[in-house]
C-alpha cells in the first residue's frame, strides 16, 4: 500500500472529525507555539541587550554623580553633583587602567532649526575621545579632533536622523544649524546605529564640551552635571579600573572609611550580562513549559487515537478481512497521529511567529525567524505524533479480525 494512499486515508479520517482533530491538535499547537515564541522572542531580547552593549562601546564604565544623602533621603541619580572638572583631570592622569575618558553632558530636549526645517532632540556635549569610546565614526565630514573637542567652537556633529530631518536629502556639511538660537556649523554626520534601548541612537547632536557649558549651561561650573565615560585599556579589567577610580575619588573627596561613595560606577557589560542571564532563565522556563505542553498534547493525541481505534474496530476488521496486514493497519493509525501532530506543529509555528512578531513590536526588538528552531520544533511535533500514536496503532494492528468484525458500535 503506497504512502500516498495511506496519507489520503489519514487526511480523510481526520477531516471527518474536523472539530475533534482541531481540539486534539491544540496541545501541540501551543507547545510548538511556545517554543517558537520563546526562541524568537529570546533572540530578540538578547539582541536588544547586545545593542545596549554595542551602542555604549565595549569595555566601558560609566561614572556618575551619586545623590547626596541628606538624612538618608536620596535626591536621585545625578541630582546633586559631586564630580568636578578637577576630578576629571585627575582621572585622566592617575588611573592607569583607563584608556580614554570622556565627560558627557546631556540635554534631553532642545530645539534645532536649519534653513529648511526644525527638529527637537537631545544634545550631548563631550570631547573627541567620546567617539573613540563609542566606536562611532563619521559617515560624512568628520568628528571632533582633540583641539575641536576641547575648544568652545560652535560646531556640531549630527546623527543621521537629525541630519535627515533638518536637511532632507542635502548634505549638511558646512551648513548652519541653530541650537537654542545659536548658530553652529555642521562638520560631520555619524554613521547610522539604528534603534537602541533608549530609542533611536541616530537622533542625536554632539557639540564640544566647553561650547555646551557656555551656551547650554550658561557658564563654566565647578561640578560636572553629567557623567564620565571611561574605556579600559584591556578587556576584563573592570574590577581593577573600578578599584582605581574609587580609590582616587574617595581620596579626592576626602571620604572616611565608613562613608558612602558620593559617585557611582556602572558597568554596562555586567548589566548586559545580568539581563542576558535573566532572559536565558526565562527562556529555560518557557522551554520547560513548552515541553510539558507538548507532552500533554501528545497524551491528548494518544487519547484521541485510542478512542478512534475503538470507534473504528469494525473498520479495522473489514480491512483485515479484505487483506490488510497488521502493519498496514498500524501504519494507517500512525500516519493519522503523525499528520495530526504535524499539522498542529505547523499551526504552532504560525502562532509562535505571530506571538514573536507581536512581542518584537511591543518591546521594540528586532524580529527573528529562527528557521533551525522551526525545523527542530516541527520534527519534535512529528516525533510526538509518532511516539504517542504508536501505542494506539499497535493496539489496532493486534486486533483479532473476527473479534473486530463482530464488534458492535
Amino acid at each position, binding site marked *: 500500500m503506497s504512502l500516498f494512499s495511506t496519507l489520503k486515508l489519514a487526511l480523510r479520517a481526520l477531516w471527518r472529525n474536523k472539530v475533534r482533530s482541531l481540539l486534539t491538535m491544540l496541545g501541540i499547537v501551543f507547545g510548538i507555539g511556545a517554543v517558537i515564541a520563546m526562541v524568537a522572542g529570546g533572540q530578540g531580547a538578547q539582541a536588544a541587550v547586545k545593542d545596549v552593549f554595542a551602542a555604549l562601546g565595549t569595555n566601558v564604565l560609566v561614572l556618575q554623580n551619586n545623590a547626596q544623602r541628606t538624612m538618608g533621603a536620596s535626591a536621585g541619580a545625578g541630582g546633586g553633583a559631586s564630580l568636578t572638572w578637577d576630578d576629571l583631570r585627575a582621572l585622566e592622569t592617575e588611573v592607569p587602567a583607563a584608556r580614554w575618558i570622556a565627560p558627557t553632558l546631556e540635554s534631553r530636549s532642545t530645539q534645532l532649526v536649519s534653513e529648511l526645517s526644525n527638529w527637537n532632540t537631545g544634545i550631548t556635549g563631550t570631547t573627541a575621545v567620546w567617539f573613540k569610546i563609542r566606536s562611532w565614526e563619521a559617515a560624512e565630514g568628520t568628528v571632533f579632533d582633540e583641539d575641536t573637542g576641547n575648544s568652545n567652537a560652535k560646531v556640531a556633529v549630527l546623527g543621521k536622523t537629525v541630519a535627515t530631518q533638518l536637511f532632507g536629502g542635502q548634505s549638511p556639511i558646512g551648513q548652519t544649524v541653530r541650537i537654542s538660537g545659536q548658530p553652529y556649523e555642521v562638520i560631520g554626520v555619524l554613521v547610522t546605529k539604528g534603534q537602541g534601548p533608549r530609542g533611536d541612537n541616530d537622533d542625536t547632536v554632539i557639540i564640544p564640551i566647553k561650547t555646551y557649558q557656555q551656551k547650554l549651561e550658561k557658564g563654566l561650573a565647578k561640578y560636572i552635571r553629567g557623567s564620565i565615560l571611561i574605556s579600559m585599556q584591556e578587556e576584563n579589567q573592570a574590577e581593577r579600573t573600578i578599584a582605581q577610580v574609587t580609590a582616587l575619588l574617595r581620596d579626592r573627596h576626602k571620604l572616611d572609611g565608613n562613608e558612602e561613595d558620593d559617585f557611582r560606577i556602572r558597568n554596562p557589560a555586567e548589566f548586559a550580562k545580568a539581563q542576558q542571564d535573566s532572559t536565558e532563565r526565562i527562556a529555560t522556563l518557557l522551554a520547560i513549559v513548552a515541553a510539558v505542553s507538548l507532552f500533554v498534547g501528545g497524551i491528548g493525541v494518544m487519547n484521541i487515537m485510542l478512542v478512534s481505534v475503538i470507534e473504528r474496530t469494525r473498520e479495522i476488521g473489514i480491512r483485515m478481512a479484505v487483506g490488510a496486514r497488521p502493519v498496514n493497519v498500524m501504519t494507517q493509525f500512525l500516519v493519522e497521529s503523525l499528520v495530526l501532530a504535524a499539522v498542529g506543529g505547523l499551526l504552532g509555528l504560525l502562532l509562535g511567529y505571530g506571538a514573536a512578531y507581536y512581542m518584537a513590536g511591543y518591546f521594540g526588538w528586532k524580529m527573528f525567524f529562527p528557521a533551525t528552531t522551526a525545523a527542530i520544533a516541527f520534527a519534535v511535533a512529528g516525533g510526538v505524533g509518532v511516539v504517542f500514536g504508536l501505542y494506539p496503532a499497535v493496539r489496532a494492528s493486534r486486533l483479532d479480525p473476527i473479534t473486530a*468484525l463482530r464488534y458492535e458500535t
Partner: protein
Amino acid sequence: MAAAQAPGDGRPLIEMRGIERTYVMGDNEVRALRGVDLTIERGASIAIMGTSGSGKSTLMNIMGCLDQPTKGSYLLNGKDVAKLSRAQLADVRGRMIGFVFQSFNLLSRTTALENVEMPLLYQGVPAGERHRRARRALEQVGLTGREDHHPNQLSGGQQQRVAIARALVGEAPIIMADEPTGNLDTRTSYEVMAILQGFIGQGKTVILVTHEADIAAYASRVITLRDGMVIDDKQQTPISATEALAATPPPHAPPAAAMPPAAGATP
C-alpha cells in the same frame, strides 16, 4: 499470486483433516469444532448448514483464514495455513478469498467505488488500475452509476451487491458468503443468489454459510454441521436463482436505476 491461482499441483482447493477449534470462556471450554474432515474441489458451490451454535461460522472463519484451528491440518490450495504468520494470512485472504457478510460490512461515509477498491489497495495495485477494476466489478453486479454513492444512500440489496463487487474485484478464486441474504427480502435474496451462482460458471468456488434450507438449495453440495461435527454431506442438483427471480413478480417499483426501465412505469 501466481501460485495461488495455479491449479495447485492437482490437489483439491480445500483439504481439512481433524480440524478442532476450542474457545476458552472463563472456566468453560467451548469446543466449537470437534474434528472436521472436509475436501472441496475447485468450482464447487457449497452450502454449509446448521443451527446456530453448530460451528458453521467457526468453520467458515477457519476456511477463510480469519481464524486458526486449535488442532488439525488445513491445506488451502495445497499450502498449510497453520504455519502462516498474521501478515501472510492477510495476504492469503486478500488474494484467495472474497468475503460477503450478512451485515454487508461496508465502510460507511466511503463511496461504493472506494469500498470495492479496498482489497486492491492492500495488494499494491496502482490507483488508475484500482479505479478501473472497481468500476468493472460494480458493473458486473449491476451498479453502474452508483459508484459515488455512500452505503447509507443504497438499499440493502445494493449494499450487498457492493460487498459482492468487493469480493470479486481481487479475482479471488473463492467467494465465502456468511448468511448473505439474511438481511434481505425474498426478491432481493434471489437477485443476490443469482449473482453468486453466476460466479460458479466463471470457475469460482462459492461457499455459503446459511441456516435456511431454501438458500442451501442453490448449492450443488450441502454440508450439515451439528455440535461441531459434520453430520451430513450430500450432492444435489441446485435450483437456479435466475429462474426463481423471473418467477417472482416485483412487489413494487424497484428504486434501482440498474433495473429495466419498464419496471418503473407502474401506474
